[in-house]
């Protein structure tokens, strides 16, 4: 009994921490409609700033509380600056571009934190009062966790009062419902938005600082926190604070007991619960309908390729085929990676552009393909062609199974479900050491003798990846491709002319998954190894950046985006140790300069001319 109680209490303490982050995220989303990817980074900065402040203050409880409050205030100020400097310029952009910009901030904050605080985990020394225990049912339970348990409901109560008993709160709730009307009634939305963002950032800072006694300030907080916060916010219902608290309780308890029951599969458990909630209630526990669904902006007409464009593609392909004649081994290795990137980006574009399903976890299929190829080649001794066949097959099958959940949703919910699923695959790759080798990966998966040497590897990758991308293009101009776009443009009309939109979307999801799986399989043989990083959030974001950089609504977009991004990435990697910072800044600037992507901007310029 005591054992159960203590675990339940541990779960409640965890729930409080989750809630602090998730409430900020959900409040920001409710009003600004921005999915703030940088919310985890704000939490991470909260931890670092908290460390800096708390290690300089006397170590008694009053000073600790003051330091934590100061940290929250500092982060609130930073949040306000972030909103005024960046997000304010993006409220009229498509939501995916807003998300991309906040991901750019994630990268910038990563390197800024690294430069400021160094790579080591930073802990605060814990005075006796922080180490104190109470005895609960014959088990020792930390007093600090009891404090955390109380903080969750206390913050919930404060937020409730703030939103229901103050004019500011009423304005915010009104703006959540209809922000344009609030403006027409004489309320300056800019001030409202900035203050909401500051509140959310302050809560993130609070969470970061309060996490210090039991943890540390480290560079991994941002992505781990944002994933959990997304899960909580989606389960609770976007924009609902009470929903976020209920979901935090659910996830907190699930994690506390999951660690005991099935220690390796806690994330899987969380995911199953999330999927179950979303299947039963597509808008989350307390979310209401009418949440924004269109993520990729309005659809623009797509024209079949003209003869001139086909000629252009042909020339590009010829140049690519001739590259080994002039390029050295290093350049060839970059070109090989670019070829893989093209297929990876094209497959995401397939579901996201014509399919209208913005996947935040596309690396899942890449990784499943990579591991399928790596494991079959190394574990089962399957020869390379077989392994390269298994890669898209495994990814495609997985995409069908998972896609059955995904195609029921749309917009932000869909995006977050895909992100969560990718995290499961990542966790499996990372934790299932006996099969995947964990963090060490699987090494020594090289092509057979006939296919060794950079030129042959390059040509092989080019053939498979350019071929795969061409197949995807071809499908888009087939009746199926038109039906897919029809399902995106107007599901109502699509069903009324007899199209089974769910099945069409599922098929598209599977095709894209298989194509990404092929890219992953090829990459495995290019690198000779597979790592969990193939499935990581940053890798999913790579694909997203490439597609958005190129332009979602142009067919040439993913190719342009993949080439530009691979070039940029490689150049940065060689030029500076702080490549994340530069890349992040580049992403932010590109989003500000080209809200419709590079290819989109060029296309518009061409049409005008």
């Amino acid at each position, binding site marked *: 009994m005591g054992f159960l109680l203590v675990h339940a209490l541990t779960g409640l303490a965890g729930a409080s921490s989750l809630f602090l982050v998730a409430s900020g995220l959900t409040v920001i989303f409710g009003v600004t409609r921005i999915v703030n990817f940088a919310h985890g980074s704000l939490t991470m900065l909260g931890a670092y700033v908290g460390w800096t402040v708390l290690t300089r203050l006397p170590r008694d409880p009053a000073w600790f509380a003051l330091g934590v409050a100061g940290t929250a205030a500092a982060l609130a100020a930073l949040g306000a600056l972030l909103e005024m400097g960046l997000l304010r310029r993006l409220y009229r952009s498509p939501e995916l571009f807003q998300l991309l910009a906040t991901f750019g901030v994630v990268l910038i904050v990563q390197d800024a934190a690294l430069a400021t605080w160094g790579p080591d985990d930073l802990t605060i020394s814990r005075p006796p009062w922080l180490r104190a225990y109470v005895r609960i049912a014959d088990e020792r339970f930390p007093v600090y966790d009891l404090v955390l348990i109380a903080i969750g409901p206390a913050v919930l109560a404060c937020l409730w009062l703030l939103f229901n008993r103050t*004019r500011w709160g*009423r*304005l915010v*709730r*009104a703006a959540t*419902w*209809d922000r*344009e*009307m*609030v*403006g*027409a*009634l*004489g*309320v*300056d*939305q800019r001030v409202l938005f900035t203050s909401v963002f500051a509140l959310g950032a302050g809560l993130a800072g609070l969470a970061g600082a309060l996490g210090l006694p039991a943890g540390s300030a480290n560079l991994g907080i941002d992505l781990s926190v944002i994933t959990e916060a997304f899960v909580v916010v989606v389960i609770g219902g976007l924009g609902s604070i009470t929903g976020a608290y209920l979901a935090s309780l659910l996830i907190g308890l699930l994690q506390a007991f999951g660690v005991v029951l099935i220690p390796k599969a806690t994330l899987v458990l969380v995911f199953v619960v999330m999927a179950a909630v979303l299947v039963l209630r597509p808008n989350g526990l307390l979310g209401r309908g009418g949440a924004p669904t269109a993520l990729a902006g309005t659809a623009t007409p797509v024209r079949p390729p003209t003869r001139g464009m086909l000629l252009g593609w042909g020339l590009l392909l010829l140049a690519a085929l001739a590259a080994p004649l002039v390029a050295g081994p290093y350049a060839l290795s970059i070109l090989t990676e670019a070829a893989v990137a093209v297929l990876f980006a094209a497959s995401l574009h397939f579901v996201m552009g014509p399919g209208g399903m913005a996947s935040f976890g596309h690396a899942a299929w890449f990784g499943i393909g990579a591991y399928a190829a790596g494991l079959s080649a190394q574990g089962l001794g399957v020869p390379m062609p077989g392994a390269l066949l298994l890669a898209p097959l495994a990814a495609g099958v997985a995409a069908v199974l998972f896609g059955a959940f995904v195609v029921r949703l749309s917009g932000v919910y869909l995006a977050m479900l895909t992100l969560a699923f990718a995290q499961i695959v990542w966790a499996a790759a990372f934790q299932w050491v006996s099969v995947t080798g964990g963090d060490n990966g699987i090494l020594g998966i090289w092509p057979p003798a006939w296919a060794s040497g950079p030129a042959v590897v390059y040509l092989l990758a080019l053939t498979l990846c350019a071929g795969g991308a061409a197949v995807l293009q071809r499908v888009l101009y087939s009746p199926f491709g038109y039906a897919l776009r029809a399902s995106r443009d107007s599901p109502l009309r699509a069903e009324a002319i007899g199209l089974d939109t769910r099945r069409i979307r599922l098929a598209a999801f599977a095709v894209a998954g298989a194509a990404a799986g092929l890219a992953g399989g090829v990459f495995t043989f290019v690198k000779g190894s597979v790592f969990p990083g193939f499935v990581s959030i940053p890798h999913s974001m790579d694909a997203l950046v490439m597609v958005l950089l190129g332009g979602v609504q142009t067919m040439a977009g993913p190719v342009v985006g993949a080439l530009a991004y691979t070039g940029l990435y490689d150049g940065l990697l060689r030029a500076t140790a702080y490549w994340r910072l530069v890349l992040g800044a580049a992403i932010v600037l590109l989003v500000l300069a080209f809200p419709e992507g590079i290819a989109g901007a060029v296309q518009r310029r061409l049409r005008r001319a």
Partner: protein
Amino acid sequence: MLAVEGLNSFYGQAHILHGVGFAVGSGEVAVLLGRNGAGKSTTMKSLIGLVRPASGSVRFGNREVARMEPFRRAQLGLGYVPEERRIFAELTVMENLDVGRQPARDGLRPWTPERLFTLFPNLGAMRRRPGGRMSGGEQQMLTIARTLMGNPRFLLLDEPSEGLSPLIVEQMAAAIHALRQEGLSILLAEQNLHFAAEVATQAVILESGRVAWTGSMAALRADAGTHGRYLAV
């Protein structure tokens, strides 16, 4: 009080308003008439700024407001009541009113919820009811009351009689008379000519985004030809 000149507005790529111009004097009640799609709503939205006019001038008092954000126009005393009512469904009647609250204005008696409840007695009986659980007529009263909380000098009323029962329409007409007594100037967009005739002093007829006719309501009543050409089918 309000002078519009050469207003051009687009909705997406569609050119809706073509050089619309008219003026409404202080203390007057003017009505914008015209068929569906003639540009009445777009004119109203352009005046408050929810649609950004591509060109043209909107003078309110002695200020040029055509490029201003909607909230600035509202703060200057332009009150906008949207056609779709746009009640904050999760907020109660009192909370909805509070969102509309703005400081009092010189020369006008400030509006309070209590004063509004004498104008719209139905609302007073449901102060804590969420806006989403009110009937269409009650919502229409609430949306007007909410805008009045901003103490406007000039009221833009987009289709206030739309979808209301005859009894409520009568109440609405009485309310507009009362507002005029308070010293407000009003521009309404209407399709219901009878309602318009009851409350308005002046008429502006729009046809395909252009002003086709302006004049007094009495002149319009007398002019059967204009009637037939622009308003009947």
